Every structure is written in structure tokens, then in C-alpha cells.
């Protein structure tokens, strides 16, 4: 972090020197919170919680109980941690909303994005944590109940899509109508791929094995590559957009005195 005068841009026209880095300090701070949250989420879900890569959908009650028993500690540590920092999702949506409000396409789309992502996080993220934490903290329950929690967690995590498709759609529309070129147009198209993969993910409700089950090549692995690509592009583009803000960029909110 550089000195205060050079980082707080857009505030002091008397400041003769150009700031060393574009963007205000709080935007950069929230940007890094976004990056940290997504990293923590990947670690928690993939390494500790074992939800990605997904366990098998075609297992028996007993196998589910054994699986929860084997990964009990990882799930407990990882998911309790994620439950504590889950608010990071709100901050992450906020920073995207901030850049969307910079677009000329209107604030409604920014609010729609934030709301859709916010609601989507409940089935798409929270419910998985809660189901699997319940299963690992109550291992004495009936195996069939554990199996239900296992299925409910995974299907909710991967198969809940309406809110996300809406969020990606409004993001794409906002970018395509934006005349300020905050994000490039190709990112709108990549967001449209996300909609397609989310819609294809409906199939995992129907299949217990094969390419279209929740651990399938099409419904999961190709979709996850597209999602990963989307996040990496978003990180890069937000960094660029933050850097493009100059001292003449109007503030979106009033500065504290």
C-alpha cells in the first residue's frame, strides 16, 4: 500500500502528481477480498469438503455413511470455516455490482445481478454446507437419512440454477448495452456460456451415472472448466477496470469526511 495521497484518487484535484496506481484504495481492497474469498471457497470446497471433484452419485446408504465418516474432519473444518466467511459472497457480489453501476446500461441490472447471486448462494452454497455439516456432526443418524443429506447437498450445490442463469443474463445484457466499455464484450459472451452450462446441469437430477450425472463429463467437468475460466477472466477484468479509474472518475458514493 502506497502513501495515502497517491492512492485516494478521484478526490483531490489539487493533487498534482498522477497516482501511481489507478482506482481508489477501497475498490482495490474489496477486489482483493473478492479474490481471497474465491480462493478460500475453492480450498474449502475442493480440498477439505470434498464436494469438488464430486463424490459418486450411484452409491448405497452404507457407502455414504462410510464416506462421511472418512471425510468427517475435513468437512467439519472446511465447511465451518466457509460458513463463518460466507458473507464474503455478498462482498464479492458487491464489487461486481460496483463495476456494473459504472456501466451506462443502468443500475437496475446491477441490483438484479446482486440480488440474483445473493439468492442463488442459498441453495448453491449454503445448503451444501448445512446438509453435510449436519451429516458429519450427527453421524449416529440413520444411514438413509445421511444418504438424503448427501444427495440434497450435492443436488442443491450443482443443480440449483434459476438465480445464476438470471444473474449471468443480466450481466451479459449490461455489458452489451454499456457504452463506457467497463468490461469487454467478449466477457458478455462468456457469461452466456455459463447460462448454457447451468441449463445442461438440470440433467444431473435425472441421471445417477454417466456423462450427465452430477459427476459427469458434460454436466460437471466441462462446466467447471467454463466456470473457472469465467472467474479467472473476471478477476483480470476487474483489476483492469479498477486500474482504468482515474482521478476524474466520478465517485459512486460520498466520501467520508
Amino acid at each position, binding site marked *: 500500500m502506497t502513501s495515502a495521497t497517491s492512492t485516494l484518487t478521484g478526490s483531490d484535484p489539487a493533487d498534482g502528481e498522477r497516482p501511481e496506481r489507478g482506482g481508489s484504495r477501497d475498490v482495490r481492497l474489496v477486489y482483493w477480498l473478492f479474490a481471497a474469498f474465491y480462493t478460500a471457497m475453492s480450498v474449502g470446497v475442493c480440498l477439505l469438503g470434498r464436494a469438488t471433484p464430486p463424490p459418486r452419485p450411484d452409491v448405497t446408504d452404507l457407502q455414504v455413511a462410510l464416506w462421511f465418516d472418512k471425510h468427517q474432519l475435513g468437512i467439519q473444518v472446511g465447511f465451518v470455516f466457509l460458513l463463518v466467511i460466507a458473507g464474503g459472497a455478498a462482498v464479492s457480489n458487491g464489487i461486481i455490482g460496483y463495476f456494473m453501476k459504472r456501466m451506462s446500461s443502468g443500475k437496475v441490472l446491477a441490483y438484479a445481478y446482486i440480488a440474483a447471486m445473493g439468492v442463488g448462494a442459498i441453495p448453491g452454497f449454503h445448503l451444501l454446507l448445512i446438509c453435510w455439516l449436519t451429516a458429519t456432526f450427527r453421524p449416529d443418524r440413520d444411514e438413509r437419512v445421511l444418504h438424503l443429506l448427501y444427495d440434497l447437498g450435492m443436488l442443491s450445490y450443482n443443480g440449483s440454477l434459476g438465480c445464476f442463469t438470471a444473474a449471468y443474463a443480466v450481466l451479459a445484457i449490461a455489458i452489451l448495452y454499456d457504452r463506457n466499455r467497463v468490461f*469487454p*464484450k467478449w466477457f458478455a459472451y*462468456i457469461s452466456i*456460456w455459463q447460462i448454457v452450462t447451468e*441449463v445442461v446441469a438440470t*440433467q444431473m437430477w435425472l441421471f445417477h451415472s*454417466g456423462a450427465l450425472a452430477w459427476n459427469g463429463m458434460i454436466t460437471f467437468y*466441462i462446466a467447471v472448466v467454463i466456470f473457472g475460466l469465467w472467474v479467472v477472466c473476471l478477476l483480470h477484468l476487474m483489476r483492469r477496470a479498477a486500474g482504468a479509474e482515474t482521478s476524474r472518475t466520478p465517485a459512486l458514493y460520498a466520501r467520508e469526511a
Partner: protein
Amino acid sequence: MTGTATRGTPRRSPDRDRRLPGDIDMWVMVLGDLFFFGCYFVTYMVFRALSVEEFSAAQRHLNIGIGVTNTVILLTSSVFAALGVIAVREGALKKAERLLLATGACGVLFTLLKVHEWHSEITQGYTIQDEFFSFYYVLTGVHLAHLVLGLLILGIAVRELRDPRGRRPGIIEQSVLFWHMIDLLWVVIFAILYLMR
């Protein structure tokens, strides 16, 4: 066929500069889509190879006549779209608009035939219970979703042509580019689902 001569000699059409048709954003979309559809196609082929007998038997229930008709319809739509771009370059905007509308009409016709095909397959009992048909519905469904998006984009292009303040040739090129991609993907889908059995 490549349109380029070997290095050192003058190009076959020296009065024509190399340029990117459409814009780079649309090419990111097209190349990315080609890549991911390619992954779908290879996945399908691997699963097919794992149970050839079942897939091959199921593939025989497809109506290859409808498949061929739909292929020709899409190829025709593409040539209309390509001619539309030429019309825009000539400044014949009315003609371009008519050609793009013809493209869209072919797209609608394709959709109707596809829905009819799905309907008759489902009523015959070929549902996603069968592994081949689960792939079939997903691949053709994702393709049809792209086609509907393509119709929307064509609509934007036609609006652009009608608006005297608009008429940016770039927009027309981009939307037509997307349309050709739909055609291109269908050619592959037709070959692997209907023909290679």
C-alpha cells in the same frame, strides 16, 4: 482453397487486405464455443464407444430424412446470411434486410422441424431412459438454444439495418458470424448423431 499463395509471391487477391471478419469479441465467443462443443462431441464419442451396440441400435431410430432436410435448411440459411453481408457492403440495405429475414425464416423452419422430430421420438418412447437419446437431447437441445439466441441476434441486426442512425456493418457481420457457427456445429452434430452409427 486456402486463398493464400505461398510466401514471397503476391497473394491471389492483392487488392484485398487481410482483416478479421466481425470483431474479436465475437471470435472469442465462436472459438470458445467451438472448443466446448468439441469437448461435448468427444465425450459423446467416447461414451458411444463404451457401449456401441446400444448406441448403434438407438441411432437407427432417428429419422435421417429430417436430419438431412434440417441440414440443407441450415446451409441455405447460411448462404442467405452470407449474401446479406455482401448486400450490406454494396449498400443495398433493403436487400440485406430481406436476406437476413430469409435466414431467420430458415432458422424458424429448422426449429419447427426439430420440435416435430423430438415430439415424434418422445411419443415413440425414445426418452432419456436410453443413454444415446440422453446425449441426443442434450446435444440437439444445446444447439437449439444457440439457434434461438442466433435468431435474437439476427433480430438485432435487422433492427440495426432499419435504423437510419444505426447501420453499422460491423454489427451485421458479427451476427452473421454467430449464425454460421450454428450451421457449422450442426454439420458436426448431424454427422456424429445421425450418420456415424
